[in-house]
């Protein structure tokens, strides 16, 4: 054991970070906590309400519906983007001049601002003048995302897949590139099939990066706001009103700060809980 006198001065080095985090995370969060237990009137008059707003939100049909829509949306997005991303990464060249071309093409959608992505897809999907919308209608498929819930959902999911599959591709590709050639050579000599190579070499070696990819895609898609509000605005009706859209409606549309704050906290806890579940399940095998 060392008998050194601990030097406490190092704490001062951490101070700037503590201040920064306090201002951009802790203080806003505490403000929300503060709102969530009070009734707000004009001119900054507050009444303490305890857990009333939490009870109200948890029992509200509207919240249940938004949450269900959100869970369905995220589930569909993950179910498409993760396998598709892995498949594209597997198909990409491992070396040669095409590697950088592929990587740049893949990274492109990730570099476009979210509201621009929304605007692009809004325009391309317009049934009367948009390339996609017009083509579909010309082919005899009735398509109008401002009137049909199914069309609205399809458009949102297609947009999300277009925008974010690249992230999974890049992470999976990084994982694949880290596999030494000897593994493939050994598999060849062992007489392994293509499927066995994927199952026993590529997938296990991609595990860590896929964990990160799934977590990021889960969190981001669960919090999606900008793209969806630009394309559908939550409609038609409430059919694409996802959790974040609903939250903004309550907070800024109706100015119900108390219920909105309570809902934010519940929303936050759901994300935290699900992320933890994902992480634990996916890293479970590594521990033993």
């Amino acid at each position, binding site marked *: 054991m060392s008998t050194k006198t601990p030097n406490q001065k190092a704490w001062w080095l951490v101070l700037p970070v503590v201040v920064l985090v306090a201002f951009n995370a802790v203080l806003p969060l505490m403000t929300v906590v503060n709102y969530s237990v009070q009734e707000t009137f004009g001119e900054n008059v507050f009444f303490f309400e305890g857990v009333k707003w939490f009870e109200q939100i948890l029992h509200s049909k509207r919240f249940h519906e938004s949450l269900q829509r959100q869970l369905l949306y995220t589930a569909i997005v993950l179910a498409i983007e993760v396998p598709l991303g892995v498949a594209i990464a597997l198909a990409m060249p491992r070396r040669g001049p095409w590697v950088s071309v592929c990587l740049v093409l893949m990274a492109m959608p990730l570099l476009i601002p979210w509201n621009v992505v929304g605007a692009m897809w809004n325009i391309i999907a317009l049934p009367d003048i948009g390339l996609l919308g017009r083509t579909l209608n010309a082919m005899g498929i009735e398509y109008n995302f401002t009137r049909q819930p199914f069309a609205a959902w399809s458009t949102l999911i297609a947009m999300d897949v277009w925008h974010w599959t690249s992230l999974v591709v890049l992470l999976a590709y990084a994982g694949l590139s880290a596999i030494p050639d*000897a593994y493939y*050579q*050994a598999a060849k000599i062992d007489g392994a099939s293509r499927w066995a190579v994927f199952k026993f070499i590529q997938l*296990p070696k991609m595990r860590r990066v896929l964990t990160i990819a799934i977590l990021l895609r889960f969190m981001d898609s669960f919090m999606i706001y900008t793209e969806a509000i630009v394309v559908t605005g939550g409609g038609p009706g409430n059919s694409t009103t996802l959790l974040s859209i609903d939250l903004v409606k309550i907070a800024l549309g109706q100015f119900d700060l108390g219920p909105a704050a309570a809902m934010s906290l519940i929303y936050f806890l759901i994300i935290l809980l699900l992320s933890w579940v994902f992480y634990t399940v996916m890293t479970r095998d590594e521990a033993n």
Partner: protein
Amino acid sequence: MARVRLANLRHSYRPQPQNDADWAVKRLDLEWANGSANALLGPSGCGKTTLLNIISGLLRPTEGAVQFDQRDVTALPPDERNIAQVFQFPVVYDTMTVYENLAFPLRNRHMAPGAVDRRVREIASLLDLGPMLEQRAAGLTADGKQKISLGRGLVREDVNVIMFDEPLTVIDPHLKWRLRGKLKELHQRVGTTMIYVTHDQTEALTFADQVIVMNEGTVVQAGTPVELFERPRHTFVGHFIGSPGMNVLPATFVDGVARFAGHPVALASMPKPPASAKRLELGVRPEFVHFDTDGIPVKVVRVRDGGRYRIVETECDAVTIRLLVGEGQQLPRNTAHLRFDPQFTQLYADGWIAS
């Protein structure tokens, strides 16, 4: 089991090799006898791994053919050549148990479950993997994992040849000794043709009956460990094998007498160096240099302890000559005379033996 032959082969990693330096393996013709234990020895980058990958089929040679017995296998992929290879770094299938790892090559070839089980347990006990058969392979130490790799290489009985690519690099020194002995013992038991690639002379000389020394893409010498030691065909072999390496001294050869710094040096056989030779050298291993009452006059410069013997560094005409002196033997001070064993002293012309 098979006789392995590389016929008139050379290989380049460039699509259009222009000059000599573009060839990773220069033209060679090699043959390994059926059931022999062989080593390919050479420094990093000498082309030994390239040669190994050509035999296993991971690489296709630019020119020439690979033959197993009479069959030309040059165009066959690795899985159709029926060979086994153990790599430098452990390759294990992380999600499988040790047992499944060992069974993998057999199951891929649709062997009956009972036979698989028997064979896996046999190999496991050979490598002391028995107690961990049901463990996940991912949790093992580096040498445990390498033992699995070795096991997967050895588990198939009918292979033509087993190749080892510096397999003991990641193994702890004390285990290296045991595994080296194990491999040797294993070869005697299974009798498969084995080729062992390494840059470690001890590994090569203990494992193999026949050692091929490579340097810069060419075969410098092929022979038994004793031949490599007593009669290196090239000064490179003299340097590379032995610790310390062979003394290489600038020499002249006039009227049938070899001289070093003006002093005549006796040779067992009459050398015939080519007239065109630019550089003549005498090579003699430290083991075959002795102190004597007369001979080459030298100055004793330094004495190092080498365990059971001492390495004495002497100097004559600013050229260092090393010799080994046994423990307890009297060492001369300052000046002395050296005598070389004529039988183990060779003349080299431009690096190649001329004796």
